[in-house]
């Protein structure tokens, strides 16, 4: 703590769980947008990941409300934001926007996997058969006409999904950006910055997951897909960084009353997480490594390693960015005369360990979903003893 902070500001109110919330929803939005690059924009190089990225979005979406729920002082009253919403509050929209998006993702997943589900139900036995039969919801028609209809519906849902994903995450930015009392949050750029950093984090996540999954399954990475991920990450990272720098540059150039406090925050109080982790390791290093990773002179192995490393760095950088916004904004006292300090804890309910568990929770969830609905095109492997012809789908 330095300078004077109001007595009620000694403790930071929004802590690590609230750092997780925009991080996880950002990953959802990013992964979804990536899957739409194939389903809507026809970027066929992303085909190997088109279904997997949708499942990734779904897995993270399932976990997205948990940090919020655990953070509430009265978690049992959580549903009140949908039962008795107060419509002037930005936060009141969360339940509706989230539910809409969840339904959309579930629908798209179902239509995308319907053929597989029907085939699994036909070829399996006992409990597994019952499970997949329930999943078909009674729609067992997999004639070419029916599948063509499925395909059209998926395209429509994915198209609706893009603005919905933008809205879901832009809205998270608005929650922070509309708080006039907080000098570091209050900017109309906030929703756009959140949106682009979400896209960045989603692509980075898919890079790391794709590498991890191919390693686990002892498969080969499809290089054109991986190099496209590399390229898109690079482009999105440039856009996101320009916006983030624009915000700070604008504040600094205008040099209004609050600027000395913001400068002090960035250069002193969160300098490690802002200058070093977010901007240095999370932006600068990947911006250099990614183009090197696309170089034709390097071996495939080096290309993949550089790309994966950049993805991991970007993931860390975006997490640091969420921290710098959420916690950083609260470190500046509203008295504009001092900074409060964040006390790191390990085990308390917003300590590092429970937060790490919540952060990693989507991965086992994803593993289960992938087990139930194998998303890999062109492979004949499904759950045990099942050999449906998945190769025919989606071509």
């Amino acid at each position, binding site marked *: 703590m330095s*300078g*004077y902070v*109001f*007595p*009620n*500001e*000694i*403790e930071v*109110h*929004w802590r690590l769980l609230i750092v997780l919330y925009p991080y996880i929803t950002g990953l959802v939005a990013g992964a979804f947008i990536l899957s739409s690059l194939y389903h809507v924009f026809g970027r066929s190089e992303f085909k190997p990941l088109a279904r997997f990225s949708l499942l990734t979005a779904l897995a993270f979406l399932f976990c997205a409300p948990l940090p*919020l729920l655990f*953070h*509430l*002082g*009265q978690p049992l*009253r*959580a549903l*009140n*934001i949908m039962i*008795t*919403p*107060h419509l*002037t*509050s*930005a*936060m*009141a929209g*969360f339940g509706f926007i989230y539910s809409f998006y969840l339904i959309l993702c579930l629908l798209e997943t179902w239509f995308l996997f319907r053929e597989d589900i029907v085939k699994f139900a036909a070829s399996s036995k006992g409990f597994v058969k019952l499970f997949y039969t329930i999943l078909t919801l009674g729609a067992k028609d997999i004639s070419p006409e029916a599948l063509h209809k499925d395909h059209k519906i998926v395209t429509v849902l994915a198209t609706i999904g893009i603005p919905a994903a933008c809205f879901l995450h832009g809205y998270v930015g608005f*929650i922070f950006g509309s*708080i*006039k*009392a*907080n000098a570091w949050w209050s900017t109309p750029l906030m929703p756009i910055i959140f949106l682009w950093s979400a896209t960045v984090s989603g692509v980075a996540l898919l890079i790391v997951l794709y590498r991890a999954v191919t390693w686990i399954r002892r498969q080969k990475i499809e290089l054109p897909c991986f190099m496209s991920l590399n390229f898109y990450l690079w482009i999105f990272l440039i856009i996101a960084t320009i916006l983030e720098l624009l915000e700070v540059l604008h504040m600094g150039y205008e040099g209004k009353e609050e600027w000395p406090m913001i400068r002090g925050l960035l250069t002193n109080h969160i300098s490690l997480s802002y200058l070093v982790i977010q901007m240095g390791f999370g932006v600068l290093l990947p911006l250099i490594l990614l183009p090197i990773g696309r170089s034709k002179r390097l071996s495939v192995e080096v290309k993949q390693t550089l790309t994966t490393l950049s993805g991991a760095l970007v993931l860390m950088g975006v997490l640091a960015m969420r921290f710098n916004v959420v916690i950083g904004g*609260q470190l500046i*006292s*509203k*008295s*504009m*005369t*001092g900074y409060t300090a964040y006390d790191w804890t390990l085990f308390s309910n917003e300590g590092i360990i429970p937060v790490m568990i919540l952060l990693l929770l989507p991965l086992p969830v994803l593993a289960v979903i992938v087990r139930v609905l194998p998303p890999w095109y062109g492979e004949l492997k499904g759950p045990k003893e099942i050999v449906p012809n998945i190769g025919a789908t989606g071509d």
Partner: protein
Amino acid sequence: MKLKFTRRNFVISTAKVMAIGLLAPTGALAVTKLAFAEDSSQQNPILKQWAGKEWNFVVDTAKCIGCASCVKACKKENSIPLDKEVYRTWVERYLVYTNDEVRIDSPRGGLEFQQEVAKPEKQFFVPKLCNQCQLAPCIQVCPVGATYRTGDGVVLVDRKRCIGCGYCIQACPYSARFLHPILKVADKCTWCYHRISKGMLPACVQVCPTGARKFGNMKDPASEIVALKKKSRIRILKPDMGTEPKVFYIDLDEVVK
């Protein structure tokens, strides 16, 4: 007549169900509203209570001696844990030195001021509390409508509705709000609404030995604060936030934020 399941019938019946679903609650709401409107201030006990009242608070900073009796009285009156760093009201000390250096502190809300060694050019105290803003950001951002403004001008928190999300704490430009350490709901100064509703003064006003804190009804011409606001040079805190605070400060120095 047997109804055939056609697209046309499906659309018509869906429209019917939706129309009923929308009309029923809207109608119920309208009826309740009408009933409430008829029940004017003569009958409704709450409206009767509010009628003819508009509470305001005036702080005369020149009179405050920094004894922090108000801080203690407030914590006791409102059952706010004394040992926790949460305050419905607090007292700030400003030490302005010759070299334009301003030192501000409020150790434990003003309960533990220490003697300063270096003698400042000027020194004064500023009591702070919720400003009960006319355009309160905390009300705007509450996702469940747990915080609201009463007809006599006090912003309150419904402890049975608050979900403890802390958005109002972020939105308050004055840091007047906190999460109640025991109840886990948002909490803040209510101008001792339970006391003023019975014609008593807020606890902090009651205990102030120098009369630095004044409280009264702006709709009562005989009220002391009406005269005080008329004759004094007053300022509000952070006017640029556009919140229209209802706590008015006499002789407030420019360094106070």
